[in-house]
C-alpha cells in the first residue's frame, strides 16, 4: 500500500493546502468518454425533438400540437421526421455498439461495475444533496468518481438505452406480431420519457449549479481541479492518489534499474 497523505473530508484544509490542490488538475474522463457523451447529447436532442413530433395522436402526445407543425416546417413532412428519427437511431446504436464491443473491458465493463453500482454513501448523498439544494445545511458523505445522483441517472440511462434500442429496432423493422410492436411503443416511450425527465436535473446539476461546475468543464477537458475531486469525490480522490503513488513508485523503480551512465537512458533524456 503506497504511503498517501491521510486527508479526511471533514478536516478543513488551510488556505495554502486548498490553493495547492486547486492549482493541480487531475484526469477524470478519457477522450472516448467525452466524445461519446457529446455525441449522445446531440443524438438525444435530435431524437427527442423528432420523437416529440412523431407521437402526435391526441391521446398520446406530450409535446404541444404546434411542435409537430414546427418540425414539419423544418423537415418537410412527418414522414421525413420519422426517417430522420430512425436513421439517427441507427447511427446512435451503431456507435454505441462499436463503443460497447471495442471498449468492452476498457470502458463499458469498468463503468458499469465500478461506477454505476450505488453504495450506502450514495443513498445518503442523494438525501443530503436534496436538503442542500433546498437551503438546509448538510454534510455530503464522501463519493466515488460519480456521485449518488450521477449513478442513479446513469442506471436509468443505461437501462433506458437498452430498452430504447431494442424497442426502436422492433418498431422500425416491424419485428414480430402487432402486439409486440404495440408493447414496444409503450416501453420506448417510458424509457425515453424517464431519461428526458432526468435530463433537467442532469443539465442543471452539471452545467448550472456552481458547486458542480468543474464537472461540466471536465466534459470538455477531461480534467478537474484536485480540490474539487477532494471535496466532492473524496473516495475517488483517494483511489486516484493510490494509483498516482503506485505510478510514481513504478517510475522510481524503472529509473533505479537503469544504469545512470547509459547515454540513451531516461536520465540523459531529462529536460535540464
Amino acid at each position, binding site marked *: 500500500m503506497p504511503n498517501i497523505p491521510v486527508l479526511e473530508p471533514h478536516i478543513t484544509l488551510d488556505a495554502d493546502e*486548498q490553493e495547492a490542490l*486547486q492549482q493541480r488538475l487531475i484526469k477524470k474522463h478519457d477522450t472516448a468518454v467525452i466524445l461519446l457523451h457529446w455525441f449522445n447529447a446531440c443524438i438525444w436532442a435530435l431524437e427527442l425533438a423528432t420523437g416529440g413530433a*412523431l*407521437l*402526435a*395522436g*391526441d*391521446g*398520446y402526445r*406530450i409535446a404541444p400540437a404546434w411542435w*409537430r407543425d414546427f418540425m414539419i416546417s423544418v423537415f418537410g*413532412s*412527418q*414522414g*421525413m421526421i*420519422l426517417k430522420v428519427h430512425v436513421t439517427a437511431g441507427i447511427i446512435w446504436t451503431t456507435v454505441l455498439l462499436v463503443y460497447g464491443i471495442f471498449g468492452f473491458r476498457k470502458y463499458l465493463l469498468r463503468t458499469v461495475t465500478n461506477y454505476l453500482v450505488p453504495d450506502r454513501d450514495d443513498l445518503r448523498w442523494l438525501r443530503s444533496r436534496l436538503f442542500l*439544494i*433546498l*437551503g438546509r445545511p448538510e454534510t455530503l458523505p464522501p463519493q466515488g468518481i460519480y456521485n449518488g445522483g450521477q449513478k442513479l441517472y446513469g442506471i436509468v440511462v443505461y437501462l433506458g438505452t437498452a430498452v430504447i434500442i431494442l424497442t426502436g429496432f422492433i*418498431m*422500425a*423493422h*416491424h419485428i414480430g406480431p*402487432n*402486439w409486440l*410492436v*404495440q*408493447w414496444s*411503443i*409503450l416501453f420506448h*416511450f*417510458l424509457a425515453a*420519457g*424517464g431519461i*428526458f*425527465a*432526468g*435530463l*433537467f*436535473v442532469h*443539465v*442543471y446539476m452539471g452545467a*448550472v*449549479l*456552481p*458547486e458542480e*461546475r*468543474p464537472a461540466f468543464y471536465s466534459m470538455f477537458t477531461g480534467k478537474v*481541479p484536485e*480540490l*474539487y475531486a477532494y*471535496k466532492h469525490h473524496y473516495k475517488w480522490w483517494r483511489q486516484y492518489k493510490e494509483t498516482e503513488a503506485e505510478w510514481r513508485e513504478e517510475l522510481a523503480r524503472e529509473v533505479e534499474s537503469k544504469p545512470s551512465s547509459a547515454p540513451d537512458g531516461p536520465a540523459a533524456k531529462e529536460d535540464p
Partner: protein
Amino acid sequence: MTTYGMVIDLERCVGCHACVAACKVQWEVPAGESRDWVVPIGPTKDAEGLLSGFYVGLCMHCERPSCVEACPTKATYKRDDGIVVVDRALCIGCGICVGACPYGARYHHAGLRKVDKCDFCQERLARGEEPACVTTCITSCRHFGDLENPESDASRHLAHSRRLESAEARLGPNVRYLAKDRTWRLVHDAFAPPAPELSTPAWLLQKIARPLILLAIGAAFAGQAIAFFSQLRRGEHPIEE
C-alpha cells in the same frame, strides 16, 4: 365543403364479388386480406317468409373515426373531404387502429408492414374517376359522391338510407345502406358494430404512462427551477473552486 360518402343498396346486391375483385386488383391487396367484402346473410325465415341477401362492407369513413383517435403517430387521419386515409410514410404498422375499428375495415399488410384499408380510391378520385368497386358493380348498387352536393349520385339516394351503428359505437359512418326493414334487421343483428377497442399497451400508454411521464417531466422541471431560483437568491461565491 366536400364530404365523400357512399350509399349501398343491399336489395340490389347479387353477391357476385366483382367489387371485391376489382379492389384487390386495383390496390394489389394480398391473398387472404381485403379492403372491402361481401358476406352472404341467410337464408333464414322471418314472419314474412324466407329471407337472404348480402352484406357489403368497407371502411365507413366515419365522422368521428375511432381509428384516428387510436393512431399514435397520426398516420391515420381524416382529410378535409371526409376520407379517412393511412399515410404509409408515417404508419409503423403497430395495428392499434385495426382493433380500434369496430367494423373490421382495416388489416395489416404483411408485405408493406403497414396498415391498409379502403380510401375510396383516392388516386382514382384525384383523376376524376369513381372508386373501382363503384364502376365495377354490375347492378349499380353502390352510389358514390359528395354528400354535401345534392346533385351527386350518393346524395340522390341518401333520403331513406340507414347508418350501421349501435349503442356502443356511434361514429357517424359516411357509408350508408338502403335496405328493407326485414333485410336491415338481419344485417343489424349480424353486423352491428361493437364498442371500439383500444389494445392494452395503447390504453396503458394513454391513461397511465403519458400522465406519469408528464408528471415526472413537470416535477423535474419544477425542481430544477426551484433550485435555480434558490441559487440566484444565494448568489455565487466570487472565487470558484
